[in-house]
């Protein structure tokens, strides 16, 4: 596989906030068409990895390439789903406005979204079953609906590589299964998805590949190879409550 086919290539990436390192020497090569879960304890640098990969925080050292190019030259092929809490849901916009923002990157400066963009946005809303809510003000949405709107916005971007920051946090069960179905559908269309996740038991079923992170890469590979007691313990080491969760998750798997 030539390097320009690799959706994401990270080499020796180190990130520090005010001289305190949060990520050490990350090396990563994510193949195309995979649904990758990023797992790790709190403070492991999961969100930081996404942000650094997207060029939102400057790395101390190392580099990131997206389809063989630095991220700034390839923004259109990358989509981002931020954490739901990162925006003010009382902002005076409706659902359609938010989804249309996914088109802004394609429009370039000064141009307003046209009929084609609206049609596409409607299609994306339909794919997350939110079309009836298109004209709803966003403060009238439930947590799960907010997350679906963010996903519709990402769909409207029509990118090839997606970073998602905890899309399952605080959503209802129906939304969770709708989202995972959507992620699989996207994957089947050849998209590559990196998803920050915090629930161990479900991680095993949801993802093709897992990245275990604890300030450095503990393990990265197919779920079956990575989801082992030893590796999980290594990633979550020393944290008793989570250890028991790991034990439970592994027990369920029948190891």
């Amino acid at each position, binding site marked *: 596989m030539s390097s320009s086919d690799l959706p994401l290539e990270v080499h020796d990436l180190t990130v520090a906030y005010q001289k305190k390192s949060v990520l050490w020497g990350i090396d990563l090569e994510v193949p195309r068409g995979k649904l990758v879960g990023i797992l790790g304890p709190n403070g492991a640098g999961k969100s930081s990895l996404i942000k650094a990969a*997207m060029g*939102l925080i400057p790395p101390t050292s190392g580099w990131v390439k997206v389809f063989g190019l630095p991220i700034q030259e390839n*923004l*259109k092929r*990358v*989509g*981002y789903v*931020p954490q739901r809490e*990162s*925006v*003010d849901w*009382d*902002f*005076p*916009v*409706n659902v359609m*406005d*938010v989804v249309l*923002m*996914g088109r*802004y*990157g394609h*429009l370039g*400066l*000064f*141009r*307003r*979204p046209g009929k084609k963009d609206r049609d596409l946005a409607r299609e994306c809303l339909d794919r997350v079953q939110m079309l009836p809510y298109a004209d709803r*003000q966003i*403060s009238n949405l439930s947590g799960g609906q907010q997350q679906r709107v963010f996903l519709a916005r990402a769909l409207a*971007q029509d990118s090839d590589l997606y970073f998602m920051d905890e899309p399952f946090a605080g959503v209802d069960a129906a939304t969770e299964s709708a989202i995972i179905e959507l992620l699989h559908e996207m994957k089947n269309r050849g998209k590559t998805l990196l998803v920050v996740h915090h629930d161990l038991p479900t991680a095993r079923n949801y993802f093709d590949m897992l990245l275990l992170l604890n300030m450095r890469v503990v393990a990265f590979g197919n779920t079956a190879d990575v989801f082992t007691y030893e590796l999980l313990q290594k990633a979550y080491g020393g944290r008793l409550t989570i250890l028991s969760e790991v034990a439970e998750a592994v027990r369920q798997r029948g190891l």
Partner: protein
Amino acid sequence: MISLRMDAGVVRSHLRRWIWLVPLMMLLGGSISTLQAAKVGDLGELNLKRQAIRFLSFKDPAVRHAVLGSALIGISCGLFGCFLVVRKMALTGDVLSHAVLPGVALGFLWNLSKTPPYPILIGATLAGLLGIATVRLLLNTTRLKEDSVLGIVLTVFFTFGVCLLTMIQRLPTGSKSGIDKFLFGQAAAISSADLWMMGVIAVLAVAVVSVLFKELLATSFDAVYARTIGLPTRWVEGAFILLLAMGIVVALQAVGVVLVSAMLITPAAAAYLLTDRLNRMLWLSALFGVMAGVLGAFCSFLGNNLPTGPFMVLAASSVFACAFLFAPKHGVVTRWWRHRSSTVRIRMENTLKSFYHVLEARRFEGDGVSVLELATRRRETLDEIRGRLKELVDHELVTTEDDRGVAFLTPSGWKKACSIVRNHRLWELYLNHAAQVPADHVHDEAEKIEHVLGEDAVRELEKKLSYARVDPHGRLIPDLAQIQKGLPTPSETGRVTGYGR
């Protein structure tokens, strides 16, 4: 809600500033002349009328300048303010507007005169931007949070400006310079050069907001996301701050340093309460800004050139108060009124329901229902029932024969009574069937739902319950089609007899 909270904060901070400006005004001995007209005795009725005519006839060039200038800054402040409000940056606007004061003073010292205004404008813009830069610097290099940093920068810059102004007042030419007008604004002193600048800024504001609407919207809603899709958020933000600073500076002549932030925030906050879309909010806010500006200029002119700023802010605050009270969705009075009218409706529907129950209990024989029967059914006093009946009579749902103490349903009253009972029983059945709620638990829930079920919801329920006829308590559910078909023509007295069996 956010804007409300901010507005309260702004008002409070203004009050605080006013109070400590009192000794300052005394210090500025020479400037007291501007405030002399505030003595009520001077404002004779004749004078007011004459001034009003002079203002409204628009002949006086000073009036034309004042009105046009105030309207123009109303537009620019209104537009910029929207972005401050939705980005929760109201206090940043406050800092920027106060930080310009030392720049005003230094610009004046450049050639010891207010004319030409360019040194003052340039100095003020630079001082404002320096203030914002200081805020950013402190935020990036210390652990301090934004509110503390804003508080420090605002007061430091403003104090520095006040010191410089005091110095200027002591200069031989200082007291006649009119520099003090920058504190509270004086629309009548707007020169044509000022006017030009206000026009340029207003046109720029409209142009930038319409051309860069998409970029401003995305940056304001979700700046991080905007960066990830490649929008030039830093440029957009920088351009916005620069324009905002220039907008504030040209507004100074009319509104004054102390209150210009209110002209930014109050019209926008009022618009925020009235709409859920940013583009409409921008229109409304600009409109409110113009209204406040012109009204402020008018009042100031009536009072023989009283400071304009306070009047503009009063006008803007009145608009805000109206929005707070009467906004169609969130207004306090509107909400109260909606609640009240729904209480009345529910009360009437409950009484109509009792009509049905009384009639049902006697197998729909006889047509009148006595006040006593209703009172027993509703567990209310006779007087209360008479009051309820009066309400129903007013709505032509019921007729009464007072001497016999008997009431009759009109055709529309009968239809309404049937549909409310039907809503109740359908909902009970639905809860019982679909949600497996025991039959003796469903009544209270249905008491509430019966008043809110719409036509469509009822159709849906009917279908889901496969057009059942009997509720969980074994009573008949009145059928809408039958109600209408079986409804006998009203007799000449307008009463219903037969009750559609």
